[in-house]
């Protein structure tokens, strides 16, 4: 029977089919754990006297609370320290592998899985974090779960799951220079809305997606949740296999061959039926930025801050008014004229080596605007090492940026890296909710290239604003679509 990619992976994991409206019981191949959503889950296990069923399918790291400075000193914030210490105690008590702050394999949980080669096509991957959708870039069915589901997976290695609908998002054409996969996903979210993916697993396909590197694909799948979707997926191909091969946990020898044979079957059949379809033309895209307080409130950089009075839908109008008030923006202001205080380059959306390389290409030999502070935060300790091996750290420092240790950092206001009230950022992260980057902080979501150009000019900018020499400093286009990555 014809099936979609998501249905194929789902079907291969059914332990028990649900009857009479009960959900299917699905087996979970890989469970990623971090310090924020796990303490109460372990507490639940302890209270019920239950062990972790499969420590060998579980891996933990510290990312949300960790500082990105002075990581060799005790964590100053007491509650952060407690949460991290609790994870360390739980990992030791339940026999779970943990990569702690200071360990070379520590990093944002969604970077740790892929870089160790644990994230693979055809797996079910869960984590108590909504951006687990990142792993869908490999053709895995990966989604965020809540703490009681974390406890459920720890105890049973399964999850009862209600069926989902499937949506095909086809991105045709070629990305213009200066645009990236971040612009693709921001455009998709602006098009279908933050609720548009509700109940769906999105499958990204088409020429523009095929041309993307593994890391650029992760950026897209990462933000599926911002469209309200359960998960996002991309069918595995040579790009996927090449990324995986040789990584520490990638299969070897006959296992590798068997895996690749199977992975090649993981694509939606030609006659598979999706519940919804969306088509987008990549060559029409421009650098995208958000102006509001949800990721769907985004526009091409050439546009102006919207005028709420011109919005017909009442809910949307009220939401826009509220957003503009919070953001401190005047309707009609060209987006390019908005000055920012901080540029944040990092997070599980855009803190990988390719992102750092593309930023370094733009800022090399330049100075940041005086009015702006620039934070560059690698998504994992290994990414940091790789960047340093390539000399990127020096480029950032010469530019006037801060070069930090790995973690979630300013993506969310849980660690010392925060916006002050009223402070405005251009951020390569994924959420611009009120207070997300610190109480009263104002966030514009952007691609790494827009972040770099903005850091130079001090107002929201694209690399086109920097003049033609920067568009192609060494003759290559500044898109991330063809960048390659060696295992870090």
């Amino acid at each position, binding site marked *: 029977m014809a099936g979609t990619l998501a249905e194929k992976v789902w079907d291969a994991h059914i332990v*028990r089919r649900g009857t009479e409206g009960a959900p299917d*019981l699905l*087996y979970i191949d*890989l469970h990623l754990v971090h310090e*924020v*959503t796990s*303490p*109460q889950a372990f*507490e639940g296990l302890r209270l019920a006297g*239950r062990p972790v069923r499969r*420590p*060998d399918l579980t891996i933990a790291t510290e990312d949300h609370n960790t500082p990105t*400075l*002075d*990581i*060799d000193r005790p964590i100053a914030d007491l*509650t*952060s320290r407690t*949460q991290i210490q*609790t994870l360390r105690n739980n990992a030791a008590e339940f026999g779970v592998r943990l990569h702690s702050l200071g*360990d*070379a*394999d520590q990093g944002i949980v969604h970077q740790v899985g892929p870089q160790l080669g644990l994230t*693979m096509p055809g797996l079910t991957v869960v984590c108590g974090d909504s951006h687990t959708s990142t792993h869908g870039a490999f053709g895995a069915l990966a989604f*965020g779960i*809540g*703490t*009681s589901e974390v*406890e*459920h997976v720890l*105890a049973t290695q399964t999850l009862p799951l*209600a069926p989902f609908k499937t949506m095909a998002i086809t991105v045709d054409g070629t990305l213009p220079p200066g645009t990236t996969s971040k612009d693709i996903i921001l455009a998709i979210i602006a098009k279908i809305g*933050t609720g548009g993916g*509700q*109940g769906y697993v999105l499958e990204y396909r088409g020429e523009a997606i095929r041309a993307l590197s593994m890391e650029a694909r992760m950026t897209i799948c990462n933000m599926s949740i911002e469209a*309200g979707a*359960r998960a996002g997926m991309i069918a595995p191909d040579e790009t996927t296999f090449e990324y995986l091969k040789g990584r*520490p*946990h990638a299969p070897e020898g006959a296992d590798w061959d*068997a*895996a690749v044979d199977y992975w090649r079957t993981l694509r939606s059949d030609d006659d598979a039926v999706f519940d919804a379809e969306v088509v987008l033309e990549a060559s029409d895209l421009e650098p995208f930025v958000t102006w509001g307080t949800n990721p769907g409130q985004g526009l091409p950089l050439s546009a102006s801050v919207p005028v709420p009075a011109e919005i017909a839908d009442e809910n949307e109008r*009220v*939401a826009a008014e509220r957003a503009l008030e919070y953001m401190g923006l*005047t309707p009609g202001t060209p987006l390019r004229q908005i*000055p920012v205080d901080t540029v944040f380059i990092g997070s599980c959306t855009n803190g990988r080596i390719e992102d750092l390389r593309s930023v370094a290409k733009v800022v090399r030999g330049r100075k940041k605007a005086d009015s702006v*502070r620039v934070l560059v935060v690698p998504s994992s*300790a290994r990414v*940091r090492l790789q960047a340093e091996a390539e000399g990127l750290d020096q480029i950032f420092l010469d530019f006037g940026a*801060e070069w930090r*240790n790995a973690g979630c950092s300013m993506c969310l*206001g849980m660690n010392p890296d925060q916006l*002050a009230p009223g*402070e405005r950022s251009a951020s390569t992260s994924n*959420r611009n*909710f*009120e*207070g997300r980057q610190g*109480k009263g902080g*104002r966030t514009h979501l952007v691609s790494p290239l827009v972040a770099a150009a903005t850091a130079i000019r001090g107002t929201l900018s694209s690399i086109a604003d920097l003049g033609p020499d920067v568009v192609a400093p060494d003759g290559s286009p500044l898109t991330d679509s063809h960048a390659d990555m060696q*295992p870090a």
Partner: protein
Amino acid sequence: MEKFAQHTGVGVPLRRSNVDTDQIIPAVYLKRVTRTGFEDALFAAWRGDPEFVLNQDAYRPGSVLVAGPDFGTGSSREHAVWALKDYGFRAVLSPRFADIFRGNSGKQGLLAAQVAQEDIELIWKVLETHPGTEVTVDLVAKQARCADVVVPIHVDDYTRWRLMEGLDDIGLTLQHEAEITEFESRREPWRPLTLPAKHLPPVEIVAARPVVPTLPTGDDALV
């Protein structure tokens, strides 16, 4: 888990759409390692505003939240459900819920019931003209009642059954442990194991140090 068949309590009109989990409970409260005591964290960013609905005496004892569409979007934090429950809410009505939030609610015994937008408007009208009016949420009859307004609520059959029986998830699944073990015995050898741990050689990670800070200034230039 407590059984849930019907609940009656003061209705709280929350005239906002897209109430994401960062609004329900800001990230700073997520650092706690316990499962209870989150009542003060609920809508923390709004609670300082005297106009906010929960700061009005009539609504303060509320236990049925009546919200606009796309409630519970954003981060998967289950703390959002704990905070609502700790405050005293037993049910949330909204035209549309984020999937993860709805899933989390069902597991914690908080009813997330879908109600058509026009029906929400009817209930809002009653609650706003007569603050303190009670709303009855009836899982048996699948309806919500508020003064003379009676509207259908939608909850999927499985969640409804679980709520009415007060069933714990893990216990339910472990009834099928033999099937899980059987499934595991068929797992292909290429699928990854996290243990024994494999990784690239360990390398010492040098700690980044603070630079002399250029203090950010709040930006109000565009007001």
